[in-house]
């Protein structure tokens, strides 16, 4: 009894309900949804590991990717000294796989960034203005969706030549469509919200409304579109490099390595297996991570 009353006496009076009512940031709920998704967490960890390996490549590999240091051991199978074996030109294959991640990831991220740069303004304009602008942009998107991306990319790469810059531009050319559609949908949903009308009623110009209200409110679909554009760009790069119009040797690219690997596949399986696995794991983890992010940021968005 006495203990209880002393506990009551010593309890601090509630001076403000502000802290108790501290509203939780929407990001908090997104984070909660994200960490509940095991596939997303697992793929996120694997992806971070791959990114870390790509960044730290010179520190974790024994030689440089183009050094033909092991010519006497060429086509050697995986061993303790060469984890993934040695390729046909006497280069440590593990080194080349790790450096290949640099190409794949950087093309994925840069192309996705360009996709956002193209898709975000077009989506915002289509969603906000509707009418003719929307019609025109939707027809352009339809043209892009009826052309098989790999064939068109192959043609463009053959015409413009491969190389990092061109591959990025080609991947962005096909990646912006998804970003544009996501942003357009979000902007259309928000365009008739009361706060947009209130802002217009107080003299906000269309550009002000788009840049200060609609685009900041479209940030989750933009993030989702960005992450979903990454694996697409990586696949496209691998495809083009496989077909010989992408990244030129000696720069290591997984697609290019698979192409060389299939020549030796029946006897020296490791040359095809490791780049294929690297590509598959990276694309799979980015896709799963992107899906998890989409579900976390926008639970209403499915598909």
């Amino acid at each position, binding site marked *: 009894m006495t203990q209880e009353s002393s506990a009551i006496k010593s309890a601090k009076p509630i001076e403000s309900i502000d802290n108790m009512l501290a509203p939780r940031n929407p990001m908090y709920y997104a984070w909660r949804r994200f960490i509940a998704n095991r596939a997303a967490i697992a793929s996120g960890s694997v992806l971070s590991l791959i990114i870390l390996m790509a960044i730290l490549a010179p520190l974790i590999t024994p030689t440089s990717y183009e050094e033909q240091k092991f010519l006497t051991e060429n086509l050697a199978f995986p061993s303790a000294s060469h984890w993934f074996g040695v390729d046909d030109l006497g280069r440590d294959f593990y080194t080349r796989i790790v450096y290949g991640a640099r190409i794949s990831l950087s093309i994925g991220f840069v192309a996705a960034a360009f996709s956002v740069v193209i898709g975000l303004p077009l989506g915002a304009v289509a969603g906000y203005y509707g009418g003719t602008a929307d019609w025109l942009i939707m027809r352009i998107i339809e043209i892009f969706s009826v052309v098989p991306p790999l064939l068109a990319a192959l043609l463009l790469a053959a015409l413009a030549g491969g190389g990092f810059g061109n591959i990025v531009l080609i991947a962005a050319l096909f990646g912006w469509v998804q970003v544009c559609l996501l942003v357009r949908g979000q902007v259309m949903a928000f365009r008739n919200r*009361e706060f947009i009308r209130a802002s217009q009623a107080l003299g906000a110009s269309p550009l002000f409304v788009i840049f200060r209200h609609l685009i900041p409110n479209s940030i989750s679909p933009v993030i989702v579109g960005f992450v979903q554009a990454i694996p697409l760009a990586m696949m496209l790069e691998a495809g083009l490099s496989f077909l010989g119009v992408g990244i030129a040797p000696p720069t290591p690219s997984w697609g290019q390595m698979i192409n060389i690997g299939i020549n030796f596949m029946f006897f020296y399986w490791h040359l095809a297996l490791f780049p294929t696995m690297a590509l598959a794991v990276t694309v799979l983890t980015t896709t799963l991570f992107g899906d998890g992010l989409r579900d976390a940021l926008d639970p209403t968005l499915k598909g």
Partner: protein
Amino acid sequence: MQLVDIKDLRVSFRHHDGVVSAVRGVTLGLSKGESLGIVGESGSGKSVTFLALMRLLQAPAATIEADKLELDGSDLLNADAKALSDIRGSLVSMVFQDPMTSFDPLFTIGYQISETIQTHGNTGKKAALAQARELLAKVEIKHPDRVLKQYPHQLSGGMLQRAMIAMALSCEPRLLIADEPTTALDVTVQAQILQLITDLQQETGMSLIIITHDLGVIAETVDRVVVMYGGKVMEIGDTREIFEDPLNPYTKALIESIPGREAGKRKLIEIPGSSPNALSPPSGCPFHPRCKLADDKCASDAPNLSTFGKNRSAACWKVVQ
């Protein structure tokens, strides 16, 4: 010169079932410093009229036609986007029904009010923020400094509506249009907000238009009342006269359907039927299918708004001089 001058305004919307005529020939004016109440049921075209005046209706879907659509002498019907942006906010601004959705959820109240001030004047960020603080104090918000830093979801509906009014007044408009400003609020807060709006109107000398479906809201707030039905003006008059001696049968029916003080003592009189389908409005007087006095003439010919005495007009065949 009149501040608002609308002559024969017609607004229609393209719909997949046909054309919806939301406003069918509205004529009204408002002088400086005057307050006007617009009353009508849902779908009577009361909000659309003023959204059209502010040119806030999306162009391809909505068609606006009028003989005259002027605000303080400047034509709004053919104004371009630039001119409209300049007029909105500085000459006329609007307060909306639901304060919870009238602010962008991503930014603080202070940010949004100071942004509005900055788009219209050449004030710096700091000065604009100080001005925003002053405005919040003016709308009787107790802790303006705290509210400046808060996000919309952290405030109550009443507080947000006050903040919305502060934002609407930030550029000292000459006309404030309040579209159902109290509908989404608590009954106890409703009276406070209305009082605040009338006080501010008297203080600044601006003109005021309150759009509502609630006669009680405007009874003590505005000088004149416009009754709308089916996209048309049914009656215009001084508030007192409208309440004491309604001319149009629709106005009469509206007043009879207010519960009032003697609620429980008498049976509430409702208006039979429902408001007309805007896709296929009734011929003649829009109210005739529900009107007790209607005859063949009401069904075939639409009555025009005719004046009865000073400041008074009504559209009804049954009202005699």
